[in-house]
């Protein structure tokens, strides 16, 4: 075969980036938070992560087999979904519930809608919401390195009007109640910076999301310190950095990403202050996932010389 005359249609630019490499970057970015989470909440969190990842990968494999699609477990997206899901769960959750949630994420949210890139919502977020509704109150309990606030998350304490002495250092490192991967603010930020530096994600959504949560809480409470506690006390950071930046379910254009981040922040705070759940990050992201096609349509760039609508 004479390959020199091989001509293909545009685009002609070739990039070595592929799904697998992007997902690998996301996994690397999640490692610090995973490590800190394991250090804080003990080895049980590793079991949760292992069950979640295994169930996600196996169900993806079996689903691809069942619907006779090319196997997609090697692109690592199922690993990311499983890992992300586990990081949003408390460490002492029953393991069978973790398995059900992971299978739900992969099969119902991703597989049924056509696999990677076709899902209408972030599988990990939707899986978490499913578990929240399906199994009721997520289990709470004492954790090895969390003594002062052994049971309730800062948000739950704040919601009940308590103003326990939260230390800002604790909040930054993550030594307080919460899900495995959501408390370690600094580790999450480190992961986010890595992803932005590697150009895997853009900074618009996380920055707008986190800033909106802080500012809106500041307006509602009038106290910067409380606002800071609210911003770092829940799942805002893991949601903003890792879930609101999913390619398939968030806007494409920078303006769309800004709109996404601001709206998600506002909805999060509204749910926290006026809703029945103490935490609203996952609901906010799911709602915005559903709105994403509309945001994309509003923010689409008109091609130069194209039709003026």
């Amino acid at each position, binding site marked *: 075969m004479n390959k020199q005359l091989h001509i293909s249609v545009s685009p002609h630019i070739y990039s070595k980036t592929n799904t697998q490499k992007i997902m690998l970057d996301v996994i690397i970015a999640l490692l610090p938070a995973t490590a800190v989470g394991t250090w804080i909440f003990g080895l049980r969190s590793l079991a949760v992560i292992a069950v979640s990842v295994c169930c996600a990968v196996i169900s993806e494999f079996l689903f691809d087999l069942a619907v006779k699609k090319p196997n997609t477990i090697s692109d690592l997206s199922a690993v990311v979904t499983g890992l992300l899901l586990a990081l949003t769960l408390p460490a002492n959750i029953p393991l069978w519930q973790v398995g*059900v949630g992971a299978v739900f994420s992969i099969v*119902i949210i991703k597989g049924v809608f056509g696999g990677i890139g076709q899902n209408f919502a972030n599988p990990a977020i939707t899986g978490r919401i*499913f578990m929240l*509704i*399906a199994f*009721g109150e997520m289990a709470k309990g004492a954790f090895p390195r969390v003594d002062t606030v052994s049971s309730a998350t800062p948000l739950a304490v704040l919601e009940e009007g308590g103003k326990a002495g939260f230390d800002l250092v604790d909040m930054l490192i993550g030594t307080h109640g919460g899900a495995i991967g959501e408390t370690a603010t600094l580790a999450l930020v480190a992961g986010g910076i890595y992803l932005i530096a590697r150009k895997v994600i853009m900074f618009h959504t996380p920055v707008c999301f986190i800033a909106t949560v802080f500012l809106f809480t500041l307006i509602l409470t009038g106290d910067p310190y409380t606002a800071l506690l609210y911003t770092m006390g829940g799942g805002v950071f893991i949601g903003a950095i890792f879930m609101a930046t999913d390619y398939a379910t968030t806007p494409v254009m920078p303006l769309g990403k800004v709109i996404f981040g601001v709206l998600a922040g506002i909805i999060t705070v509204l749910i926290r202050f006026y809703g029945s759940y103490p935490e609203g990050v996952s609901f906010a992201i799911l709602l915005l996932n559903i709105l994403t096609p509309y945001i994309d349509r509003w923010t689409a760039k008109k091609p130069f010389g194209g039709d003026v609508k």
Partner: protein
Amino acid sequence: MDKNSKLSVVTKGFLKENPVFVLVLGTCPTIAVTTGLVGAVSMGLAATAVLICSNLVISLLRNIIPDKVRIPCFIVIIAGFVTLVQMLMHAYLPDLYELLGIYLALITVNCIILGRAEMFASKNRPLDSVLDGLGMGLGFTIALICMALIREVFGKGQIWGVDIPFLKDHTIGFLTKSPGGFLVFGLLIALSTVIAAKQGKPAPKLGCAQCPQAGICRSAGVTDDDCAKTEGGND
């Protein structure tokens, strides 16, 4: 009609034109009573009984009922049979009567029954109408049983009200609530579409001829194309 087509009048309700999964009619009881097998089976059979009787009577009266007031006439006939079933059930199966509650009376406005009266019974001979009623009723019952099996086994850890050892301790309560019902409903619609496609029968495109609201649409000036843009059924 030969024997074969008589049989197909019955069996088309099972999968090809399943009233719930393909025609998307009668979704209200489908979500409401399928938290348990007992409710699903009794609801399905009660609706089937009403459907067969009303189809028969409407078919017999099809040349007498004036076209302009046919819907009220259908409703009166259906409501009569529903009242009959309701009273019988109240007398002989009081537990079931309590279980189904308001949804028993709501069979009157179940779209499947009115839909079959409008689509089939008012245009076909009595025997065919009875067979159609039987097929559609059983299709409805099958759909309810499928939903209830999933929701009861995984949502409550029970089957026909009896505990299942392992699943009892590992229930997914979400499935017994309405959102869970919609979820199972959607998945089963997808599954039935896949099965129908495998059999080489793509999901039927329902023209206006099949739609109970065609008359209303026509008088409002809605065309077939407009209607085709809005998906799904109505309840």
